[in-house]
């Protein structure tokens, strides 16, 4: 059984409540100690420590209860966790009332802590439950004040001088005015925070619904693209192979003029095939959850790639310098797609660097990850286009002068692959001066392993 989003949210908030109670317990104990021994104010120290102990027991109980709920009965988790929260807040209120009793009752401004519980209740519980908890708090506080007034409970005066002539706890007019205003304030507060909370919750729900809907639509779109591109690829394969029969003059010679046109058609088909292949790979990657990973030598891979693209650089008299840190060794990932990424970036650099230019490929070991940088002194990218470089179908405005080959998919595929490996890719560039593509790839492997 999978927990719903709202269940997870509630469980997390309950855990948050339990965590914060530990802090509150420490705060109570420290505050009591300081009040008694530093400020020399008369509080019932031992009794308050006992209440602290009670809170520890309560918190442990709430914690184990929650764990039990998560393990045993996830089907009714939402309702059961709410019981747990109600229990926590009610016992907190009782403990707080006890602490107040042992530290001066109505004289102690600490009574404001009731408000915390009301706010917490309005965040975590329903409107009805919040009003119930608020009423419980007010009844408990009211009873405390009343019993101290009537003498049923002892009043522990916190004044340094026990025989002060005006004991607030015995002043009926003061108590009733004070208590009345407190009740009024609390209900207004709960009403306000409750309505804000409700609005936030409903916004959160509608946002998450919208997000799910978007994800679903995106998936449908991707499946559609996959199907269409796959069909296109089938036709393209037939066209290209048939054209190749003519361009390779398998059926005999073609006259020069005709050959020119056939070659044009053939080249365009190659480009289109390439485009469709990349689009398929990108869409496939977006749709599939699984991604096969294996351990491979990144060092070897990088050197192989540089070796295999050297010809392309030499054809344009570009100096391709590579500097791969020998400390780089194995990583866990999909070797084929990493190869695709690196060669794509280097081939791009070659494509957009003019003759006699220079390209540096630097790979450095950063313990947990590897940093790969490809720096060229090519045509560069316009500053305002930098943020779109990895977008699908985006082509830089200065690309057309150099090549017609760009599909605008290569770099989005690259980005997708890097993201799949939990890596990062970014680009820095200056128009006319060159570009620098940087990639970080986590090794996902324990050093010394294998």
């Amino acid at each position, binding site marked *: 059984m999978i927990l719903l989003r709202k269940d997870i949210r509630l469980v997390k908030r309950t855990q948050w409540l339990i965590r914060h109670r530990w802090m509150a317990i420490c705060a109570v104990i420290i505050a009591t100690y300081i009040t008694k021994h530093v400020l020399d104010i008369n509080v019932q120290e031992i009794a308050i420590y006992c209440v602290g102990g009670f809170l520890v027991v309560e918190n442990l109980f709430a914690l184990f209860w929650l764990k039990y709920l998560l393990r045993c009965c996830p089907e009714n988790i939402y309702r059961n966790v709410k019981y747990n929260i109600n229990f926590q807040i009610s016992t907190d209120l009782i403990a707080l009332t006890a602490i107040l009793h042992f530290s001066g009752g109505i004289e102690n401004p600490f009574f404001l802590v009731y408000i915390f519980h009301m706010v917490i209740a309005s965040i975590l519980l329903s409107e009805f439950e919040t009003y119930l908890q608020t009423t419980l708090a007010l009844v408990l506080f009211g009873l405390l004040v009343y019993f101290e007034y009537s003498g049923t409970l002892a009043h522990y005066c916190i004044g340094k001088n026990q025989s002060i002539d005006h004991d607030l706890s015995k002043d009926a007019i003061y108590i009733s005015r004070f208590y009345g205003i407190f009740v009024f304030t609390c209900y207004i507060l709960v009403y306000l925070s409750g309505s804000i909370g409700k609005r936030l919750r409903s916004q959160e729900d509608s946002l998450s619904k919208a997000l799910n809907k978007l994800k679903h639509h995106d998936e449908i779109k991707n499946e559609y693209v996959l199907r269409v591109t*796959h069909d296109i*690829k089938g036709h393209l394969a037939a066209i*290209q*192979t048939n054209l*190749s029969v003519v361009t*390779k003059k398998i*059926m005999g010679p073609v006259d020069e003029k005709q050959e020119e046109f056939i070659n044009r058609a053939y080249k365009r088909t190659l480009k289109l095939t390439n485009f469709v292949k990349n689009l398929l790979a990108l869409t496939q990657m977006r749709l*599939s959850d699984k991604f096969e990973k294996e351990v491979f030598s990144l060092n070897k891979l990088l050197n192989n790639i540089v070796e295999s693209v050297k010809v392309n650089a030499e054809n344009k008299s570009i100096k391709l310098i590579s500097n791969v840190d020998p400390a780089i060794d194995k990583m866990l990932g999909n070797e084929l797609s990493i190869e695709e990424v690196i060669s794509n970036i280097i081939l791009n650099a070659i494509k957009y660097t003019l003759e006699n230019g220079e390209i540096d490929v630097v790979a450095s070991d950063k313990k947990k990850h590897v940093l790969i940088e490809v720096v060229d002194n090519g045509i560069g990218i316009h500053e305002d286009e930098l943020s779109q470089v990895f977008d699908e179908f985006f082509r830089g405005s200065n690309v057309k002068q150099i090549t017609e080959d760009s599909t605008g998919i290569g770099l989005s595929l690259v980005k997708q692959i890097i993201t799949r490996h939990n890596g990062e890719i970014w680009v820095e560039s200056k128009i006319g001066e060159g570009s620098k593509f940087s990639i970080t790839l986590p090794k996902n492997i324990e050093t010394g392993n294998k």
Partner: protein
Amino acid sequence: MGNKKILIVDDDLDLTVAIKAILENKNYKVITAINKEEGWEKIKIEKPDLLILDVMMDTSHEGFEMAREIRKESEYKDIPILMLTSISEVTGVNFSAAAADPDWLPADEYLDKPVEPDELLEQVQNLLSGEE
């Protein structure tokens, strides 16, 4: 080259015609079939030296099925098989890696469509010379 006999099983007639032309140009004798059923008939009658199978025909893995069936027949199990794929992106199968596992994918070589004449001829030649 010799007059080796090659059977192409592929439902895309346009592609088959082109592949046939490329192979016949190198003096191979080429027979074609458009599905598994016809493929089996031609295997039995013509006893080809090499099979070129398309993965996707009537079903998305008919070529695989046929290759597995061939591997089970003692009479034909040694015929080299070249599998034409255009679905590596769709199925997510890495064919060249899978080729190392003959039980799972029973072909000897894999060639991604579109078929380049030089590549095709090289593969065919390798498979036929390996057979001897």
